[in-house]
Every structure is written in C-alpha cells, then in structure tokens.
C-alpha cells in the first residue's frame, strides 16, 4: 500500500476506521512537529483543550459504562442464573434465572441472520454483477438505505400489522374468535432479518466491488458463465466480508429491544405453540435478554434490579464478543482474502 493511501475502514457500520498505522508509514510519523501550543492564539488553545476533553471523555464514558456494568453484573451474576428457567414470582430469590431469555436471544439471532444473509448476498450480487435496468438497481439501493434508516420501532409496528393478517396465521397463534396473535419467533425473526439486511448487503457489496476486474475477466476468458463465476470465484473471495457483515448484523439483532417487546409476545419463558416439534418453538412466544432486562428494570414489571444487572452484563459480554469476532474476521480476511481463493494472488 502506498504511503498516501487513506486508511480504509470496513469494520464499523457505515464505515469505521482502521487500527494500525502502516509500519513505515511515511516519514511524517517519525518526527513530531516541533510547534508548541504556547505560540497559539487563545481561541485555538481553548479549541485544542476541548478536543482533548472530547477524546478523553469518550474513553472515560466507555470505561464508566463497562466498569459499572461489570461491577454490578459480577455482583449479582451467579452461574446458576444462566441455566435456571425464569418464573414470574415477585420474590426474587424464587424467580429463577434467565435461561429462556438467553435461548430466545440465540434463537432470534439465528433466525434473523439465517433469513438476512441469503437475501442480502443475493441482492448485492444482483446489483453489482447484473444491475439491469439501472434505474431498478438504483431503486434497490435506495430501498435498502431506506430500510437502514428506518427506526426499528416502525419495522416492529409494520411487522405487527403485516402478521396479524389472516394470511399469516400459520406463523403464530390464532385465538378463538379468529384474531391472529401475530407475535412469535418467526414474525420477530422476519423483522430482525430486515434490520440485519443492510449490514450484510453493504459489506457484501463493498467486497464484490473491491475484487479487481481481471479476476472476472480471467474467468470469462476460460469460458465460465457469469453465474458460475459468481458461485466459484467471487463468492468465496468475499466470504470474509459476508462474515463481517453477518457478525455486525448479529450484534445489532442481539441488542435490539423494540422489535422483541412488540413482536415476541410477552411470555417470560419459551411458550411453544402447536405440536410440531421445532415449528412449535418458532410459532411460540418467549423473551430475549434485552426484553428481560427491560422488564426487570424500573421501567418494566419486574422491579428486580439485580436480575436486570446480571442479564445486562451477560448481554454486554455477548455483544462485545460479537464485535471482537468482527474485528478478528476482518483482520484475518484482510490477510488471506483474495489470496485464499484458488485463483487470486498467485
């Protein structure tokens, strides 16, 4: 990479910034400017001070949040909480742990990403590789941006309107008078996939766009059709990008509360619906760590701050872990990326 190349950053949503400056990255780094701020005007000195305050306060705030959650979480987190079922008792010593919320989070994340990834990858492939007619491609791009900018609460309400229709009764539970409940893992998972969609789409699209043309041309030159090129050459090359996008999407799904509160029904435990094993869990209701924390906080019903802290700590660990995984994948992908495929690099 040349010295003046701007650092590119794919590892934060909608851009981000890289971590390590390249090792001999230009002589400018080796010698700090000898200018001292005592020569500056007062206004500039104040601005300099404010920049420092802004930067350091970000660190302090993050440390405070993580530190406080860690202190409180460890104070109230007993390992038994992780595998006990919750029960709706007012007495906290009997109200069990949060196994079901953890299962709910995992299940919802899997459903959401499972739905989002194929759709997002397919759409990105179509937009980058085909994209005819071009007004349609632009419309799809804008559409995905609209979804990215839509508040999750609006998506949740839309999901409710959509899935309370008789047509979608198979996705959840139908009450006696014919009213469709509309809330279940399947419906919540469908909406979760919408919020993860823009991330996977963006990551895949950037990955596809960064593959140099000569790889495609080499494949065409060998007589492969476009779809075969996509399947055998391009998709394996963008696997790290897809993984990054998927991990980002999973982080966002795991942390989302509004959709869960509205679309997952409000049962503390995983309540199954119907009797086909597997499908009955999907059609049933439950809770996730996020809705469990919300309900146990003073804003919800439980009034159990200790449980809320413990669950919030677990949630924080999960989300931080996912982001760490994003970092790892991105770094590993950058190293092996194109070189990992059979056609690239050698």
């Amino acid at each position, binding site marked *: 990479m040349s010295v003046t190349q701007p650092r590119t950053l794919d590892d934060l949503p909608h851009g981000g910034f890289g971590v390590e400056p390249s090792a001999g990255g230009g002589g400018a780094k080796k010698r700090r400017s000898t200018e001292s701020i005592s020569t500056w005007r007062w206004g500039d000195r104040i601005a300099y001070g404010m920049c420092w305050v802004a930067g350091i306060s970000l660190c302090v705030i993050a440390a405070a949040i993580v530190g406080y959650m860690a202190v409180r979480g460890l104070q109230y987190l007993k390992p038994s909480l992780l595998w006990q079922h919750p029960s*709706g008792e*007012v007495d906290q010593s009997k109200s069990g742990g949060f196994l079901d919320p953890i299962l709910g989070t995992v299940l919802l994340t899997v459903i959401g990403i499972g739905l989002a990834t194929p759709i997002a990858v397919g759409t990105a492939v179509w937009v980058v590789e085909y994209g005819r007619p071009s007004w349609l491609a632009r419309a799809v791009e804008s559409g995905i941006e609209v979804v990215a900018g839509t508040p999750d609460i609006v998506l949740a309400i839309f999901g409710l309107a959509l899935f309370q229709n008789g047509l979608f009764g198979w996705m959840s*539970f139908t*009450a*006696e*008078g*014919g*009213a469709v409940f509309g809330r279940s893992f399947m419906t919540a998972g469908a909406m979760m996939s919408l919020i993860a969609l823009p991330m996977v789409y963006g990551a895949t699209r950037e990955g596809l766009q960064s593959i140099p043309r000569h790889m495609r041309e080499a494949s065409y030159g060998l007589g492969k059709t476009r779809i075969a090129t996509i399947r055998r050459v391009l998709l394996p090359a963008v696997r790290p990008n897809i993984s990054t996008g998927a991990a980002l999407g999973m982080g966002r799904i795991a942390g989302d509360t509004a959709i869960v509160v509205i679309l997952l029904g*409000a*049962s503390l435990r995983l*309540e199954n619906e*119907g*009797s*086909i*094993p597997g499908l009955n869990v999907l059609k049933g209701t439950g809770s996730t760590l996020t809705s469990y924390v919300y309900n146990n906080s*003073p804003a919800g*019903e*439980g*009034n159990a701050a200790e449980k809320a802290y413990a669950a919030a700590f677990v949630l924080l660990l999960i989300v931080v872990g996912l982001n760490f995984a994003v970092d790892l994948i991105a770094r590993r992908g950058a190293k092996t990326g194109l070189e990992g495929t059979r056609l690239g690099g050698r």
Partner: protein
Amino acid sequence: MTTRLRRLGVCAAAVGVLGATVPSMASATPVITMSGSTSVAPLATLLAKAYVKKNPGKVKFKLAQGGSDVGVADVAAGRVTIGNSSRDPKSSDPGGIFFNKIARDAICLVTNPSNPIANLSQDTIQAIFSGDVRDWSQVPGATATGTIDIVGRTAASGTQDAFQKIFMGSKTVTSSIAAKASNGLVQQAVQSDKNAIGYVSLDFINGVSPAGYNGVACNLRNAKSGEYGGVRNFWMVTRGRATGIVGKFIHWVQSSKAAQAIVGKHWVPLK
C-alpha cells in the same frame, strides 16, 4: 457416499420426524387465553398453575395484561377467551359479555416507607388526589415535607375505576397525576420517591407503607372481615355464559375448595 444416497437419507429422516409427530398433532391441547387487569394477574397466574397441575395435559393457559378495559374489549371482540377485570361492569361495556365474580380485593393507599401515615380520612384522600392539597405539611400524620407527588393508574385500569368509585366519589382526579400502567409501576414509583403517595392492590404492598382508611388498617384480615371500606370485585369476563373447557375452569375457580384456598392467600374469597 454418493450424493443420491445422501439425499435419500435426508428425505427419509424428514419423513420420519414428521411421521413421529402425526399422532401428537391430532390431539392439540386447547388453550385458554386471558388478558386484562394487572391486579387480577397474580391471582390468575396462581389459579392457572393449580388448575394445570390438577388436570395435566387437558388445557394450557396464556396470560397477557394491559388493564381491565383492555381485557373487556379483547373478550368482547373474541381475541381472548377470558378477560380479567378488577372493576364492575360499566354501562359503556360492549354487549354479549358475562361477568363471573371470582374474588374480592382491597385497594390500599400507600406512601413511601420514610413517610408512614397511620390513617387517612376520605376527605383527605379526596383533597390530595383532586389537587386541592398540594403539600405534605397540610396532611395530618405525615412526616414528609414538600410537594406531594401523586401516583395513579392509566385510564384502562380497573383499579383506577375502582379507586374513583370508592374513594373519590364524585370528585375528579387532577390531571397532574403520574399515570402508571400497572400496580408494579405504582409500587416502584412510591418506593423510590420520598414524597409519593399512590394506590395499589393489596398484593403489591411490599416495600411501601400502607395507610389506614377511615380508621381501619389496610390488611387482609380487615378486608376479609368487611371492616375495611376500600374493597372491590375481581371478575373473569367471558363471551356469553362460560361453557365447555372455559366453563369448567370458571366453575372450579368459583366453587372448589382448592381454588378458594389460593384466593384466600392474598385476596378475599367469595364466601
């Protein structure tokens, strides 16, 4: 293994799994759905659990909340099988529904534990909640100082209806009241604010200090004996007279000893 063999294996497994579920598919347990009052919810949960234990596999329960008015509206529209209501039938209720009384319950006036009040007369309560009296210094027996923070319930609540009817009579509650959506939230608000006063169902007085009403302390004994004045009814509302599985459940709640024993724990049984 060739791909064809692998594919055949997957198909066989899928058919096997589906086949194993066919017998259980034929007999899906009926579900009784309930929604409505947050005051009735703890009692309804206990009753449902006991009933399921007594009749395993015969019926399942789903419980939602939302407030008495939501329960009544839901059952009238057929969205749930039973609506829980903690207020008496109103003339504005939709038609075609039937109220089954299952228990009685006391409403307690509660204050923060740092400000215990032994007794409140009806006049004082009306003055406080209508906004005529705004400061703790004007309330006899109170040790707190400063503005009174009144906490109440939203319009959908049966407890709010009962409070209005029993305690407030014809006076209206001031609009600056903090309206909470459930008993639990009122309990929390009063617990965390030294200057707060509110009203909750008898089951929710943990962590707050109940005040006496017209000279009678608010506890289960006084409620059962009839001395305490602030007692209201709990109803399970059904669409038309309850029949079939729902009818059996409500009959069990109203007349079986076991059910009334459960009611007697925190609420006033029917007899």
